[in-house]
C-alpha cells in the first residue's frame, strides 16, 4: 500500500514540470508571428478545425465549402501552373476503363465539346517523345488540375507573381 502511494506521488511530481512547460510554450506560441493555432483553436481569428481540442470533446465538423463552377477561366499565377477546373467534376471517372475528362478535352473530341484541348506537353512521354495519344504519366488529370471552392485560406499567402516582383505590374492582375 505504501509503495503505491509513493509511486502516485512520484508521478504527480513528474507531471508538474511537464504542465508548466505546456503552459509557457502555449504563451510563447501566441507571441511568435509564426502561425500556430493557439489554445482557442483559432488562427488570425479564423477557427481551425484541426487545432488542439481536448480529445474528449466532440467538435462539430466544419461546413464544406461550395465548389466554384462558373465556367470562368482563372488567371494562372505563373506560366507553368496547371489551369484550374472551372466546372463541377463530381463523379468523374478516371480509371482504366475511361477518363471522363478526355471525353471533352481530348484532341479528337474538342470539335463536338468546344472544350480547350490538352496542351501538347501531355502527349510527350518522359523522354520527350511525342505520342499519338495522351501519355500515361499525364492520364490522371486531377493529380495537377483541381476545381476550386469558396474557402478562404486559413494561412495568409504572400505569393507574388512574376510581374509584381519585377515591378512592371499592369492592370488586371490580382
Amino acid at each position, binding site marked *: 500500500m505504501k509503495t503505491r502511494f509513493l509511486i502516485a506521488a512520484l508521478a504527480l511530481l513528474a507531471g508538474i514540470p511537464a504542465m508548466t512547460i505546456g503552459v509557457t510554450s502555449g504563451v510563447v506560441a501566441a507571441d511568435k508571428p509564426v502561425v500556430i493555432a493557439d489554445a482557442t483553436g483559432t488562427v488570425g481569428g479564423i477557427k481551425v478545425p484541426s487545432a488542439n481540442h481536448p480529445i474528449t470533446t466532440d467538435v462539430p465538423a466544419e461546413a464544406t465549402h461550395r465548389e466554384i463552377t462558373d465556367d470562368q477561366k482563372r488567371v494562372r499565377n505563373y506560366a507553368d501552373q496547371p489551369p484550374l477546373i472551372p466546372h463541377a467534376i*463530381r*463523379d468523374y*471517372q478516371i480509371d482504366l*476503363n475511361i477518363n471522363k475528362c478526355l*471525353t471533352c478535352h481530348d484532341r479528337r473530341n474538342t470539335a463536338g*465539346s468546344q472544350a480547350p484541348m490538352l496542351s501538347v506537353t501531355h502527349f510527350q512521354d518522359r523522354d520527350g517523345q511525342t505520342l499519338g495519344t495522351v501519355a500515361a504519366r499525364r492520364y490522371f488529370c486531377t493529380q495537377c488540375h483541381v476545381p476550386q471552392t469558396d474557402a478562404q485560406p486559413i494561412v495568409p499567402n504572400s505569393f507574388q507573381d512574376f510581374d509584381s516582383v519585377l515591378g512592371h505590374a499592369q492592370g488586371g492582375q490580382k
Partner: protein
Amino acid sequence: MTIRDAVLCLWRLFALPSVHFSLGFLTLGGFIAGVVFWGGFNTALEATNKEAFCISCHEMRDNPYEELKQTIHFTNRSGVRASCPDCHVPHQWTDKIARKMQASKEVWGKIFGTIDTREKFLDKRRELAEHEWARLKSNNSLECRNCHSADSMDITKQNPRAAKMHETYLFTGQNTCIDCHKGIAHHLPDMQGIEPGWSMKTSQK
C-alpha cells in the same frame, strides 16, 4: 389417337352446362376469383418493382447499388432520389410487363450465378451496360424523361456550357439523354470504341 381423345373429353367437360352450381354463384364466384387473382398478380409485380427487392441479391447490392450511393441520383441538395426501378423499369403497364418478361433472364442468371462474383460482374459489365444503353436509346431515354423533361428545362439556369450542349444536341432531337450521359449512376465499363455523344459520327436519329 389417345391424346386427341383426352383433349376432346376435356373440351366436352368444359363445354357442359353447370349442373350443381347456380349461375349467380358462378358469375359472382368468377368475379371474386378474378379480383383476387388480379390483385395478387399486381401486388407481386409491385413487390418486385421495389429497390429492396433489387438489392436483396448480393449481385445488385454490392455492385451497382454501392456505386449509385456515391452519385447525384442518390444524394443531392434537394433530397429527391432515384431508386433502381425509376430508371430500369418502364412506368407504363405494357412496357413494364415486357421488361418484366425480359427480366426472367435475370432470374436465370441469378440461379446459375452468371455474375455472382465481382470478377464475373466486371467481365460482363460492358455487355450489361450495352443492353441498357440500347434500351434507353430506342425509347428516347424515356426513364430519364419521366423526371427530366426537356420542356421544363430552364437553360438560363444552366452553365453556359451545358446550355449550349442541350441546345445543340437535345432540343434539335439529334441526340437523346443517354448518348451523352452514360455512367451517371454507375461506373462505366471499358469504353474502348464508344464515342461520347457530342463526338458521335452516327448521332443522326
